[in-house]
């Protein structure tokens, strides 16, 4: 599973970071520092919650293809 953050839409609400601070890293003024990252095992739920909490709808979840 991956998360893709459209940083051109990020406005620094930091709600993704509030849900999953180890995944949705912020830059030094509080905007997303993440573009496209693999979600470490165990953080899948937090990743989904973070994406769903984005007021700008800037975060997409890409589920791993079923082999």
């Amino acid at each position: 599973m991956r998360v893709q953050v459209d940083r051109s839409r990020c406005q620094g609400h930091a709600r993704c970071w509030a849900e999953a601070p180890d995944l949705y890293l912020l830059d030094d003024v509080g905007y997303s520092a993440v573009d496209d990252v693999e979600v470490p095992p165990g953080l899948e739920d937090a990743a989904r919650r973070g994406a769903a909490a984005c007021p700008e709808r800037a975060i997409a979840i890409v589920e791993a293809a079923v082999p």
Partner: protein
Amino acid sequence: MSTAPVHVDPTLVRAFDYHTDPEFVADPFAGFDAARGDRVFFSLAHGGYWVLTRADDIRAAFQHPELFSSHDFSIPTNVFPRTMRPLALDPPEHGKYRQPLAPLFSPPSVARREPELREICGGLVDAFAADGRCELLEALARPFPTTVFVAMLGLPLSEARTFEQSNHVMLHAYDDPPARKAAGAQILAYLDDLVTRREALGADGTDGTDDILSVLLRARVDGRRLDHDELLDYAFMLFIAGLDTVTAMLSFTFQCLAERPDLQRRLVEEPGLVPQAVEELLRSHAIVNTARVVTEDVTFAGVEMVAGDKVLLATALASRDEEEFLAATDIVLDRDANRHLAFGAGPHRCIGSHLARLEVRIAIEELLRRIPSFRLAPGESIVAHGGGVLGIDRLPIEWDV
């Protein structure tokens, strides 16, 4: 405006006034809910304006400043004594003037202030906790954000009282325009003097200090330092945008909790739930009603808008939209996916949002720690006001001691 402009379909005109209609003001969130029947409608009040009612449309308007300009962001047009930078600017100019403020209000900067904020709030609650009753605006909801602002300016906390009284008169003494003007002038004179004294220290005299003016004195816009007028504009803008709004958020939060002993009990039993509860209280009581000006003729939300039209962006309409949130009018303290628009969206997202949510969280925690159960004082009335920032003027509560 007595009749709609020719480009407005007369069937879209509704009697709607969120400023002074007594029925609306008494329960503004129910008033907005009742207005949500149509995707968009037109009010003839205050010069006429469109009202978007769906979260998707309101978000899109916030996100497209090239179509919806902030150069006039109030209904009716507000006349401020200073330039409201960066609120009244559109990109790219907006970003230049927002960027110097950003380090002051980032999540880590705000988190570093938590111990100080907790001490301020705890001290205020300590002063009335043994009384068994208080008027919450006077006791907490006004002095708390005012004292935080004074602390962030690097001033002695004893200065808070002066600011608090002038601010209240300036924003709410509608029946006394000369007093409002005088209070505004008093605040400006105070801030002007403060900026002058800080400028005398120079940017080099601010090393290591993180109060608002020191950070701004070190900042650069277009490669140059900010001048006196710009520094004063920032100070005044933060004063306008950051005090009354938090007062209003705290007022609606504690009104809601006072009316709902079940919610109080749950927060006392599950203190870890408070951060999520803050988001839900912000969602269900979004107080800001800002506006934009249409920049070119456009079809938006299914209607023809023309350049110059005013559009109301009511954050409560966006945040209580049933198409966006399940059980949108209920208060669900542990709500998931709470992408409310209480702080707006797009480039003008409330820069103080992280500070504001911290202030609400600390106020709930510090009050419930000392007063685990409280209620509205019987026989007293709550007085509320409408307009650009919804609010409460008087909230008497009581508890057993």
